[in-house]
């Protein structure tokens, strides 16, 4: 398997999780991740965390957990400029709907429940249009046993079918709240294989999709505005002008 850059975009640290950012980052680095995003809820993290230690990046993220869809849009507008990754903790139909219809949202997570799959073809289509990724929370397969895990696996299988049909971007995440919840990328690929995801798709969910989310939200120095980027150096333009005059 070719070496890819793996990212886990949903990791909690203190006070939402049990371990500090340093502990989570050290273990993720040991597991050969290229970067993680710390996604505590907005109330619990006072300042924006974003750091880069030789070859390992920590992205700042925020998980929005609201009970009212109209409140969601306001919060997204407020946090968009402050964080690299915005994750909406879904749940009810209206919140899931609001999240996939807002192109400022990066990821929709935890949208299903035990009874309801939470994801359908309507949401899939607007997720594709607005480029909102949905996350497969593999922590459910790791921590549940018996009936709950059966339900989680069958929900994942249904969601995968929709993802393939409507070409929705997706992520694999461990949703780790302590360092013992983290799993290495290949273990996550193996877990994704349980519900029929191919290895190529799983690698895409661990590296390509997170990379595109990060690059979208962290514009490079040459970025002007959406769709416009400086690609060549000035000297080329000058020489072209001279050519026209002659």
């Amino acid at each position, binding site marked *: 398997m070719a070496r890819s850059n793996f990212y886990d975009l949903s990791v909690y640290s203190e006070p939402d999780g049990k*371990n500090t950012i340093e502990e989570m*980052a050290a273990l993720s*680095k040991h597991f050969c991740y290229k970067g993680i995003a710390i996604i505590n809820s907005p109330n619990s993290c006072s300042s924006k965390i974003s750091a880069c230690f030789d070859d390992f990046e920590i992205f700042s993220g925020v998980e929005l957990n609201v009970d009212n869809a109209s409140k969601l849009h306001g919060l997204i507008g407020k946090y968009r400029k402050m964080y690299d990754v915005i994750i909406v903790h879904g749940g009810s139909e209206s919140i899931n709907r609001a999240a996939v219809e807002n192109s400022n949202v990066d990821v929709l997570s935890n949208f299903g429940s035990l009874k309801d799959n939470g994801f359908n073809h309507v949401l899939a289509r607007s997720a594709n249009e607005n480029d909102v990724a949905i996350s497969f929370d593999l922590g459910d397969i790791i921590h549940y*046993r018996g009936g709950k*895990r059966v339900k989680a696996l069958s929900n994942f299988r249904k969601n995968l079918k929709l993802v393939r049909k409507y070409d929705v971007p997706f992520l694999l995440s461990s949703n780790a709240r302590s360092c013992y919840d983290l799993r290495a990328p*290949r273990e996550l690929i193996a*877990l994704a294989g349980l519900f029929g995801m191919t290895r190529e798709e799983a690698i895409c969910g661990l590296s390509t999709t997170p990379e595109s989310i990060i690059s979208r939200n962290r514009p490079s120095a040459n970025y002007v505005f959406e769709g416009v980027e400086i690609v060549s150096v000035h000297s080329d333009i000058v020489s072209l002008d001279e050519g026209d005059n002659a």
Partner: protein
Amino acid sequence: MKVLPPTMRENKRYLAFELIADAQVSRDELIREIFSASGSLLGDLGSSECSIWLFAFDGLKGVVNCEREHVWQTRAALATITNVKGKRVTFHILGVSGTVLGATKKYLEGADVFNPEEQSHINE
């Protein structure tokens, strides 16, 4: 008795792993937990196809063997192990090899097992 011809033998793969744990775990406890996890995730049928076995374990590192075609199911089953007798653990597969020697030489010798309490800083 005549020995089994090589073509009829099971094709095995050896998975070198490290166990990240917050307390000492014994071999017997770990074996019990591996079987319970694979029984729960893959069922009796799937477990019989995988034929998972803890080949060696020294408290920190070890080797699990399984059937060649079912390495990914074995990995998934091992990934679902979260605790052994109340001690929190994480399996980290370091590599897969076709021989015990290959697995130990390539992946286990000199491997530094991660300890969350001691290595809680980023090594620069």
